[in-house]
């Protein structure tokens, strides 16, 4: 992990104008994410965690404050293809094979055919889907589909991976497995990961930094630097250190009236 700043938000505001009046999705959000960090955003629905991620990806425009990604505006970072984005639903295009889906960003970004093939092979291996390239999405299980969509986000070698509750729809067993794989992948690729989740154990298990958010208006109520080592077997979740971090997250959520 370096000390280079990857994403920096200062006094970020985002207000949606709706028919029922303005909704403060984000208010006065300050956060610095360093290169190579694994940052989780946790909080109840409506706390702005997904919105925050979408602002980083230039999918939403902030109404106040500043945010930089790799020192650029999010739009410029997008032009430089700085990040891959993984949505809650795998969102694979059903008319494309797994291979075709992974190629999609590469086609758009103008990779040559041999480069496309090489990248597809590389990421299929990375997410443990070798041999499934010719399948169509519906022929794969939910967990495999989500892995394919992660592969798609990895294919063009963006150094930031933004994941919006990627495992939210999966059962716990599959989720554990994918969490392990994701950590492995993070270690091997040294990417900066922004990860939105509802699950306290997931956030604590994965992250080097946990951002606890609370709703109305959406804001950060606590930022926890995890004391856990980078090497994390699944049973680290039974250690006192792990439980302590989890406890602090829960406290943070409570302090932010997130249980209201």
């Amino acid at each position, binding site marked *: 992990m370096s000390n280079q700043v990857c994403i920096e938000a200062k006094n970020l505001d985002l207000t949606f104008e709706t028919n029922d009046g303005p909704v403060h999705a984000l208010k006065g959000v300050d956060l610095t994410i360093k290169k190579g960090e694994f940052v989780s955003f946790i909080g109840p629905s409506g706390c702005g965690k997904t919105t925050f991620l*979408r602002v980083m*990806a230039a*999918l939403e425009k902030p109404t106040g404050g500043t945010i930089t990604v790799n020192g650029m505006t999010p739009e410029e970072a*997008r*032009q430089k*293809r700085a*990040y*891959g*984005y993984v*949505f*809650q*639903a795998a*969102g694979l*295009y*059903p*008319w*494309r*094979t797994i291979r075709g889906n992974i190629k*999609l*960003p590469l*086609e*758009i*970004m103008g990779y040559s055919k041999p480069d496309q093939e090489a990248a597809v092979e590389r990421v299929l291996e990375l997410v443990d889907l070798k041999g499934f390239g010719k399948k*169509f*999405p*519906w022929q794969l299980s939910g967990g495999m589909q989500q892995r394919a969509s992660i592969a798609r986000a990895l294919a063009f070698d963006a150094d930031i991976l933004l994941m919006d509750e990627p495992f939210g729809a999966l059962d716990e067993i599959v989720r554990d497995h994918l969490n392990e794989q994701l950590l492995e992948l993070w270690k091997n690729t040294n990417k900066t990961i922004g990860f939105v989740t509802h699950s306290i154990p997931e956030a604590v298990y994965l992250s080097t930094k946990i951002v606890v958010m609370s709703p109305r208006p959406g804001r950060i109520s606590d930022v926890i630097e995890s004391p856990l080592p980078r090497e994390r077997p699944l049973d680290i979740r039974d250690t006192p250190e792990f439980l302590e971090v989890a406890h602090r997250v829960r406290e943070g959520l409570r302090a932010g009236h997130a249980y209201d």
Partner: protein
Amino acid sequence: MKSVFPVLTVIAAIIVIWYGAAVNMNQQWAKDQAARADIELSFKELVADTWSQTRPVLPAPHQVMVELWNTTGAKVLQGKAMSKRSLIFHGWITLSATLLGFAIGTGAGILLAVGIVHNKAMDMSVMPWAIASQTIPILAIAPMIIVVLNSLGIQGLLPKAIISAYLSFFPVVVGMVKGLRSPSADQIDLLRTYFTSGNNMFWKLRLPASMPYLFTSLKVGMAASLVGAIVAELPTGAIRGLGARMLTGSYYGQTIQIWSALFAAAILAATLVGIIGIIQRIMLKRMGMQS
């Protein structure tokens, strides 16, 4: 193959009802004839007569089938497939207008749908007109189209094709608009994260996503096209085509001719829609969709 039995049952029931109705509707004529000739018809003779009249109110199924064969297969055997008495000839006239109209209608429908999806002004302005266009009875507007185009010096196939396009563009517009708008917000956002152009959005997402909708529309549009082509032949005094065949049949009380032209049209429509269905299955299968 499980579906064969119910289908055959329904067909058998229709045939039975049809023969019964033929007896019922044609008996008056048979009785009048018998009364004039001063003979008493037995029930058997009556039934036999109602099923074999030359100008019945309702021709019996076998009469229609025989007429169909005489005007198609038999003509081919005689080497006169394209004679004026051949339904193949008339069918081809109607088919060519149908196909041209279908092509125009589908093309126009897709273009309009693309415009509607990409342009807010078109969205607001075109759709109401498209809907309004379908509320005008085609029988009322068909002669006007023919007359207007005729005064512009356009005759023959094109006016008919335009009338058939007039009917077939609508389902394509409606289906394609729905199809082009079918991608989910996530699917669209995904492309946005790749910093992509509107072109890619269309070719890589909207168009492929619209395919199932398009094919459904094409089936409806094809059937509408055929109806349009036949209707276009009715009020214009055409002497060639399935519509003209029905019209002359009605002038001369040739009910068998009318019915055989009707059947030819139905068979033609079923074949065309079936062909689209086959293309649909191949296309969607290649696109990995479960059909």
